[in-house]
């Protein structure tokens, strides 16, 4: 009997672990995964699309026959969308918007975090949102930084950390590792065991300009100028270059 309880207990832990794993993954769609610069986000049977000033919702239960579920107008400058754990994180040139999609057809605005004018993709893990801000000509502003927000209370995100960067684009997160594409400086690898205290572990500088990354099944796929690069991240904090496909 004791053994049975023990087995049950182990089983329970396993189930909760699987659930956790599923949670730490982002913008999944039937086994597929997009990057942090995407304007499409698929969550369950819904497709969310952002153009420059609107969030559009489609029911894609029948994947080839989307049903228009409506539009939410947003301020100008929307750039990215990221679906995670019943929430949508929408990045614009001057703010981060969070929507609740418990009712997937009707995204409910929860909060808006205003920040300096810049470009800003977002990824999330657990109750932490990681945002990169990129200043410069097309984005405006001068701040180049990684910002970490506690989004436990989605109505009231709290800024927890700010790390200076060079000129960041997309980013990706896998367990205790955060990968930040820092333009020509290369791919920054951060230890986020304590997510509010991100620590630089290394910069992978192989001459490529890094734009975005997708951690996926133990592999990190990077969109770089001119093509893609693959890394083994079976040890997330220690990416090992596997290959590149350029031209």
């Amino acid at each position: 009997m004791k053994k049975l309880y023990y087995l049950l207990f182990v089983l329970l832990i396993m189930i909760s672990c699987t659930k956790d794993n599923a949670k730490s993954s982002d913008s999944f769609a039937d086994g597929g995964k997009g990057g942090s610069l995407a304007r499409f986000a698929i969550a369950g049977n819904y497709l969310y699309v952002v153009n420059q000033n609107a969030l559009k919702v489609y029911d894609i239960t029948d994947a080839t026959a989307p049903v228009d579920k409506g539009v939410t107008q947003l301020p100008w400058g929307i750039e990215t969308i990221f679906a995670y754990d019943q929430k949508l994180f929408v990045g614009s040139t001057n703010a981060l918007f969070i929507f609740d999609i418990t009712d997937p057809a009707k995204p409910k605005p929860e909060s808006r975090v205003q920040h300096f004018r810049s470009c800003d993709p977002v990824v999330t893990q657990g109750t932490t949102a990681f945002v990169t801000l990129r200043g410069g000509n097309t984005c405006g502003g001068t701040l180049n930084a990684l910002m970490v927000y506690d989004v436990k209370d989605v109505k009231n995100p709290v800024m927890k950390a700010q790390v200076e960067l060079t000129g960041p684009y997309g980013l990706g997160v896998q367990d205790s590792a955060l990968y930040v594409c820092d333009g020509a400086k290369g791919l920054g690898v951060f230890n986020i065991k304590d997510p509010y205290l991100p620590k630089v572990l290394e910069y992978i500088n192989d001459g490529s300009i890094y734009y975005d990354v997708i951690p996926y099944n133990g592999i990190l796929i990077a969109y770089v100028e001119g093509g893609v690069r693959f890394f083994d991240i079976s040890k997330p904090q220690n990416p090992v270059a596997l290959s590149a496909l350029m031209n």
Partner: protein
Amino acid sequence: MLRTVTLFLMAIAFCGCDFRLFELRNRDLNPPEPPPPGIVDTYVPIYAAEGSDELKIATQAIRPTHKAGKIFVMDNRLFQVEQDSGIHIIDYSDKANPVKVAFLNVPGCKEVALKGSNVYTNNFEDMIILDLNTYPDIKVKSRMPNVFPELKYAPLPQLIMTGGTTIRYYECPDYSKGRIVRWEVQKVNNPKCRYY
């Protein structure tokens, strides 16, 4: 004599200052027309008429990556946007040796996502859904017009440096000629549009 020369030099100095100030003010109010540049390197829009082959959505042979774009991964397949022209399909089952297997020609492409065997992407301003079940004979299963109004027109070319000189001129687009599918650098006599 010395005094005269000094005065003269001072006069020139002040005069120079005045001129510069005047010029500055003048430029702010009324930028002068630059002289016609003659025959120069110029961005020229390449148009494709509606219905032309170049605008067809179809599977094509693999091609080199020029303007790498966003990525989406599904199992052992990676989809990478070739900005403004389509999607590379990459097989990375052998992670040490990923290979391109096909190119989906989708003019105006910027975005890509998949659900099952359906590709969600954009054909200029329209969102379209492609069904890969019948690959390589792909069909546009659905088209939602004007989801991305800002992508209706190909963006103006970026200022680029070529061998130390910057290309500042471009032929003014005439959208009645059809879709701009790309920009090419050509020698043009006195192009009308330019960056300042």
